């Protein structure tokens, strides 16, 4: 199967090159047979890469340890789900994964895009083929998953225990899907530039793509936070680690893009800016992949250092040059059709939203690259850590939160005083009241109090929108409230789905602010001894050490330490934290006898977590005093962490509402075809 996979990769190399060349050439010369060929090349490319992937998966599942990749990332006793996740768990496999997913997206873009935009598709095929080609080249020449060893080991080395976690099965593919799917909007943008058809057509063609990739990125980042939280055991979910930052950067620019395209669609402004944003997002997604792979910046998440970095660096530079040249040569066609009329307008608020998002992106980029930059300039490395990122980004983030409430409601062009009063009187009051209550409760943390206040303001604006919309339908059409709600959302999915996404984001902010009140303590406890910890909600938790037990589980030896937890003297339950020593077997015997076990990797820690809507109890067993059951623990109380995962859920719901296919388009078509009813239907649409 690996021979077949290898062959498929070589075929992919040819097909990628072919698709790129005929896509560009066929598009420029308007040669239908070449355009057709480019389209077919994207399908074929997708086909051969799927074959290559099946080849690798088969080798993994068959335990073909003669294949270096299989021997390096799996072992006989590895649970099947992790064998599958080993496909993208290692360097070479993840590059193949990139290539195959991108080829699927490239084929889907050809398949799903409306015929209206046929003039863009040859170039889209060329760009997606070119990017896929790059990943095929890297896979073939720098990190080939089908490479074989000169001998066949009895067992593989196994997968790093920290990757043996359900979160790690879904987090990387989600993040990759986000990264990779940005290539499609980028391809459309380039197609629009090359074809000089720079009306809003290309934006309409990829509206849903942009939201899909943004959603994948959001889910991927949130799952990454969840994985870090449950698996890394330091008690938090975001450490401003370079790799985390790398995933955050394209998310920021994509968020900015999602907002600024609305201005281009509505007012024909920001054409150049949008081109820059989408190109930047794509560059940052490649940059993120580069950071994780090159080892250029040390990070807990990174792969091994390797020469792959040079390939990526060259690719990045190439893209920058091509995009810069295209933009430069198309500048005259990118003139704005309107200009800003007032600072109190939706355009202005979206512009500031963009500035702030890009500002955050810039500071995160700068902070991430600072060790390298300072070494270049000053000769010594200076690093910045979480304090830097928080100090810079918390105030900007709060300004952004305020705009989340203002942007969607303020009028286009120029808001009148009446408009402002109508939309913002109640929400501002709600925010101020929240602030006063917080101060009265004795909350002295300024940023956290601001976050809660602004969050309430945004929630109030969204609630007000829903209430008003439902009320209007109820009055005008005599619909019941439930029906009115369903129709309101159904008829205007993009708008109301967007509001729900905003609610999700607000929920994240609230959860982040909660971490300002975290509390932790370390203790070394003999069985029966206990330690107290105060929670910000005023409870006192008592942790009593019960003991440490050892047992075998799957592919590991587990030492589990248990504590009895009580809240204000009332028993809550037992929590347990584990130290796991994974092993592989010298011979293929299952279960493995003790004598044949070889420890693989360092021992890993499994935190004990007890979560509710108020706060998480987070305990880490750090080890025992030599030969006794006296255990060293770290106990942490993390307030409001639950709300991050809930916020993620809300965000996905909002995203799905926005994306849901159906009546909006059909209703528009009905308006077009049934002319006689047009007035009435338009009337209905206007109040929604």
């Amino acid at each position, binding site marked *: 199967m690996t021979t077949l996979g290898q062959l498929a990769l070589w075929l992919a190399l040819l097909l990628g090159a072919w698709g790129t060349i005929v896509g560009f050439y066929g598009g420029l010369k308007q040669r239908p047979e070449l355009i057709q060929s480019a389209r077919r090349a994207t399908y074929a490319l997708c086909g051969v890469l799927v074959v290559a992937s099946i080849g690798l998966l088969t080798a993994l599942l068959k335990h073909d340890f003669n294949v270096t990749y299989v021997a390096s990332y799996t072992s006989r006793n590895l649970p099947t789900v992790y064998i599958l996740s080993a496909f993208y768990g290692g360097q070479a496999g993840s590059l193949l994964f990139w290539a195959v997913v991108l080829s699927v997206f490239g084929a889907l873009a050809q398949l799903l895009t409306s015929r209206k935009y046929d003039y863009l598709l040859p170039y889209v095929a060329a760009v997606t083929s070119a990017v896929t080609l790059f990943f095929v080249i890297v896979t073939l020449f720098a990190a080939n998953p089908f490479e074989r060893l000169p001998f066949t080991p009895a067992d593989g080395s196994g997968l790093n225990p920290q990757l043996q976690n359900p979160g790690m099965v879904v987090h990387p593919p989600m993040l990759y899907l986000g990264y990779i799917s940005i290539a499609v909007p980028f391809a459309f943008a380039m197609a629009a530039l090359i074809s000089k058809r720079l009306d809003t057509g290309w934006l309409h063609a990829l509206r849903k793509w942009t939201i899909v990739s943004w959603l994948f990125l959001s889910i991927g980042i949130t799952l990454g936070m969840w994985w870090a939280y449950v698996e890394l055991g330091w008690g938090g979910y975001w450490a401003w680690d370079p790799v985390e930052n790398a995933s955050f950067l394209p998310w920021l620019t994509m968020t900015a893009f999602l907002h600024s395209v609305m201005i281009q669609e509505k007012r024909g402004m920001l054409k150049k800016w949008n081109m820059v944003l989408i190109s930047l997002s794509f560059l940052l997604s490649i940059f993120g992949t580069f950071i994780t792979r090159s080892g250029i910046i040390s990070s807990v998440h990174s792969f091994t250092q390797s020469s792959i970095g040079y390939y990526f660096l060259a690719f990045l530079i190439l893209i920058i040059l091509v995009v810069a040249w295209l933009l430069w040569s198309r500048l005259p066609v990118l003139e704005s059709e309107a200009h800003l009329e007032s600072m109190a307008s939706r355009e202005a608020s979206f512009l500031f939203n963009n500035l702030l998002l890009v500002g955050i992106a810039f500071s995160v980029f700068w902070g991430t690259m600072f060790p390298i930059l300072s070494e270049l300039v000053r000769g010594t490395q200076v690093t910045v850590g979480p304090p830097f990122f928080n100090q810079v980004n918390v105030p900007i983030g709060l300004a952004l939160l305020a705009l989340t409430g203002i942007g969607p409601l303020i009028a286009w062009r120029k808001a009148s005083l009446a408009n402002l009063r109508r939309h913002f009187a109640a929400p501002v009051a709600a925010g101020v009241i929240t602030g006063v209550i917080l101060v009265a409760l004795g909350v002295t943390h300024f940023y956290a109090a601001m976050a809660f206040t602004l969050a309430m303001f945004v929630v109030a604006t969204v609630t007000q929108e829903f209430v008003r919309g439902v009320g209007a339908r109820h009055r005008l059409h005599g619909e019941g409230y439930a029906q009115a709600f369903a129709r309101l959302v159904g008829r205007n999915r993009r708008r109301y789905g967007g509001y729900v996404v905003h609610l999700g984001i607000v929920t994240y902010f609230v959860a982040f602010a909660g971490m300002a009140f975290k509390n932790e303590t370390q203790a070394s406890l003999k069985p029966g001894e206990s330690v107290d910890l105060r929670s910000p909600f005023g409870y006192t938790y008592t942790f009593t050490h019960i003991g440490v037990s050892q047992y075998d589980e799957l592919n590991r030896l587990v030492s589990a330490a248990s504590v009895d937890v009580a809240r204000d003297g009332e028993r809550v339950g037992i929590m347990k934290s584990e130290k796991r020593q994974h092993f592989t077997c010298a011979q293929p015997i299952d279960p493995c006898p003790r004598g044949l076990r070889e420890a693989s990797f360092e021992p890993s820690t499994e935190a004990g977590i007890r979560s509710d809507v108020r706060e998480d109890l987070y305990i880490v067993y750090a080890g025992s005093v030599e030969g006794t059951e006296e255990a*060293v623990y770290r106990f942490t109380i993390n307030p409001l962490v639950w709300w991050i995962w809930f916020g993620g859920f809300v965000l996905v719901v909002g995203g799905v509402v926005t994306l849901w296919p159906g009546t909006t388009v059909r209703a528009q078509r009905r308006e077009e075809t049934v002319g006689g009813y047009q007035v009435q239907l338009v009337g209905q649409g206007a109040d929604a």
Partner: protein
Amino acid sequence: MQAKYKFLFGAVLVGGTVGFLMTSGIKDTGVYFLTPSELASKVSADPSFHDVGVKMGARVVHGSIERDVASQTITFEVTDGSQAYPVVYRGLAPDTFTDDVDVVVEGRLDPDGTFRATSLLAKCGSRYETVPSA
């Protein structure tokens, strides 16, 4: 056109704020990242450097780790091949902390030559993979 200038003014304000936050952030929180030899030459050139918090990246000397679980203190020695320092760290060590790994310690170098670390990060050269041996 007036709105455009107002916006530009706002943009400059936002840009300036971000720039200010970044420069002050780096000044307040930036930390030197040095190898033991670089630290040694910095300290010998300027003794007041003992009071500056630094990060030091080096390798743990084989067999030098001593753990006192009761007081949660770890002492070990790090080196970059030419300069070695003893390190004292109180707290929980990460899972990957063991002999011969690369570590990053953050803290201060005492005048007596002991590095007092407030944080300890261990990175494993082959963190997510191990190369199979024959």
